[in-house]
């Protein structure tokens, strides 16, 4: 009887920690392929190769809590504590692609969260400046990014409303923190020709993305994008 109990307990332990020794690289590749297929299925243009490469390289399982690592490469948002989430990979890919960043760019991120979006950007651009108002979250993300060798990401635990004037202007801005309005100082810190992207929706529920474009003459226009290929009205019954 005792023997069965011990074997059963061991089996339970094995089930509880299935991620140990797994090949994350293969899983990541599969996730990226899924993301690309999803974007194509929804009529979104394929993200640039640099975005794909970045998604292939950034270890998402390092950015989620330990108990969720086995879900890290599933295309879904995950809780990261403090009432915050890490975005769905397809949303990260779309957002990163929408701001059209390139090597040598300087990007501002408002809302560091787990640091995953900053890490993806860091693989593409020269420098990422990320701001987080939840101190413990920002500290964890900063430590994580440093430990993982993302030397071109700077994290500051401060109010993101006024942006990062010392490093402005920026080629692109990503605002992942919920805000009731787009802070005017952020628009001011966007370079002419620069782009800002804001995901909108509750936690776990990015429903649409807003892309703000600053034109060469300083005027601003915005676009609202539903990530999913879902048309509310289709012909016929």
């Amino acid at each position: 009887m005792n023997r069965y109990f011990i074997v059963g307990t061991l089996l339970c332990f094995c089930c509880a920690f299935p991620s140990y020794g797994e090949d994350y690289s293969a899983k990541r590749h599969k996730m990226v392929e899924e993301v690309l297929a999803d974007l194509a299925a929804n009529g979104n243009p394929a993200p640039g190769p640099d975005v794909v490469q970045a998604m292939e390289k950034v270890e998402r399982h390092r950015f989620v809590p330990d108990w969720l690592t086995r879900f890290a490469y599933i295309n879904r948002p995950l809780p990261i504590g403090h009432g915050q989430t890490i975005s769905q990979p397809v949303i990260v890919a779309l957002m990163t692609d929408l701001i059209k960043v390139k090597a040598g760019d300087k990007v501002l991120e408002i809302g560091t969260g787990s640091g995953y979006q900053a890490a993806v950007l860091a693989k593409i651009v020269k420098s990422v400046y990320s701001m987080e108002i939840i101190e413990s979250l920002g500290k964890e993300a900063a430590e994580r990014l440093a430990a993982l060798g993302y030397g071109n990401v700077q994290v500051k635990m401060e109010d993101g409303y006024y942006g990062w004037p010392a490093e402005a202007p920026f080629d692109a801005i990503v605002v992942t923190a919920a805000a009731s309005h787009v802070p005017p100082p952020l628009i001011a810190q966007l370079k002419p020709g620069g782009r800002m992207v804001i995901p909108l929706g509750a936690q776990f529920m990015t429903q649409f993305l807003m892309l703000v474009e600053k034109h060469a003459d300083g005027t601003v226009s915005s676009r609202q994008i539903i990530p999913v290929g879902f048309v509310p009205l289709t012909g016929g019954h």
Partner: protein
Amino acid sequence: MAAPRPPFFAIGLLSGCLLAYEIALTRLFSMVLWHHFAYMIISAAMLGYGASGTALALLRERIAPCFNATFLATAAMLALAMPLSFLLAQQVPFNPLELLWDTSQLPKLLTIYLLVALPFFFGGASIGLALWRFGMQAGRVYAADIFGAGAGSLGIVAVLFFMSPGDLLMILAALALFAAAIAAIELKVPRPWLAKLFSGLALLAVVAAHAGWLKIHSSPYKDLSQTLNISGTRMIEERTGPLGQVAVVESTRIPFRYAPGMSLNALDEPPPQLEMFVDGNGPTVLTRFDGNLASLAYLGQLTSALPYHVMGSPAIRLHGPRVLVLGAGAGADVLQALYYRAGRVDAVELDRNIIDLVRNRFGDFSGNLYKRPDVRVHEGEARGFASAGAGQYDLIQVALLDSFGVASAGLYGLSESYLYTVEALQTYLGHLAPEGMLSITRWLTLPPRDSLKLFATAIAALEESGVPDPARRLAMMRGWKTVTLLVKNSDFSPDEIAAIREFSRTRSFDPAYYPGMLPEEANRYNLMARPYFYEGAVALLGPERQDFIDRYKFHIEPATDDRPYFFRYFKWDAAVELFSLRQQGGMALLDWSYPLLVATLIQAVLASILLILAPLAASRARETLPPASAALYFLAIGFAFMFMEIAFIQKFILFLSHPLYALAVVLCAFLIFAALGSWLAGRKQGRATGVRSVTTAIAVLGMVALLYLALLPDLFDALIHLPDPAKIGISAALIALPGICMGIPFPTGMARLACTLPDAIPWAWAINGFASVAGAVLASLLAVHLGFTAVILLAVVLYGGACIAIRGFA
């Protein structure tokens, strides 16, 4: 030796605790999650009662020799279970937002459901025991039970004015322990120390309540939890009340700057603000105002400022518009009215705690906003005030009070809202000056949901008010995050249309519709793949409206008082498609609340089969199955009773202003009058077979139900302005007759079964219990789909079926 006396006081007290607990749970669920979950709590209560009935039926012989000990033990277990089951339920990491992402949320929901049912099991067991033990005095025991329940359900509403629901749970535990102590005395238990022990424990529970021992942990995804995560924020004031826990938060390091959907062209920054949350939802902001209107310039950069730019008659310019703000909260819309130099502002707010906070505690901060001579604050419900109000307004503003996250995640999908129904809009329009406007601002959701549903509702309201061409009286403006609908009491003039265009141009907001709008004017600033809002508005105004509504993948049929689910956008067809697109971002477009209701129904059915029916089927009782007619009879009356009760609770929310009031009053009234009906049925049983009394009761009930369906809307409209005590009295009076009628079928059927097949009685209890558990949730599901009228009619039909079935087991 004298016959033992039933523990009347203890029974009354235990019954009161149970009902109070049931109502307290709705408050607790509102605080912890987002919804009151009234249907789930009623269902769980019925499950507890039903399972206790089955347990008693099976263990009766074993319990018989030790009634006193079992009664005391169940009372003590009830005391323990009330706080403990809630504490354990709080430990279950159920997150409704993840319901569609994560299948492990379903067993978590089931665990919460079963934990919630546990106290009802013990409570039901103790009262059921007493009813069984003192069968000869069952009438008096029943009276004590009902009296206690009635007092408990109403008493708790009064207590909630000064005690938080968490502390209240401990007080209820103390009362249940106190009931055990009283029972020990009433039952003359030979161990006198037991009464002292229970009293001592009750005192300890009171001390624990006073010390705030039971902490309520809200979901970390609620607005308040998220705000308190920000460095430098702290709660500076908290008020408790039956309508919600109000929390005021200040942020010393990072200003709040709440300006929903402010124009991208704006350069203004809001002045310092405090945020207010009700049950962790919000915020509604309290803005510092020093009398300098220039500091409020940001309020002119919101879509909700549109009506002030459109109103342009000389009289309004001279005296300033008369404005009515419905749902004033902490006063953001009142400030906006002052910014636009309103001549007079009437602000209606339901929660007296919020009014008091703005007026007194934060009077200096708010610039004594609610004490100004040009601002009159009214405590009351928006619909009630609008119905009763004699005034006429140039502008009625319906404030944007729910949060963006909550609105976009579909968290209110099952919440009744009588603020955005066709009848509500008609009422508002009735209080507009000839050139007046109704302005309603909602969050922008993509693909469009709220705004198109609101537009369709406004068209229906205008048409039902006899307006021949609603298209000439409607305008809608969308920003990047908010949408404002204008409904005018007369046709828009060319000057007003020019003002709409100018407002749009200067703020880069897109007109979604105004009379004479050209297609190329849509979708210019905040670009979308298609001009969804304009196309939707035009389709809704065209001859193909119904076809468009039917084909649209979200539910945008106008909300009515019969189906007041404005926030429900869920459609099964679209759900299947969205679920298949879940990996591609489709999941975010699904409301979780509706699938949650379906999941709750499935678990209610399974749990009641497992805990109520299966134990009987596995026991010797399987040899004494009731005839099919009897089974159908008890099934039908179980469902019918719940359908009536739930429909009445939902219907009375409009009249009594809040779900909690409706739940307390309607439950209490049904209990008392159904008990009266049972008592009347018991008196008659000696003289007649019962078939006639059931038939008569159901015939009367059917007529009353039909009469109410026809008369209640007008009656509510005429009486909604009355003070709360009067409305409670009227509600009870209205429920009296149907309540009495509904109390008759169950005891009559039982008596009939007792004459013919007494061994099948446990089955009758169990089947009725099963129907009550499932019926509570099914009624809510049917109400969402078909409306309250259909639910009530269905109940009448089921009662009619019961009339036929009862003849089958003579």
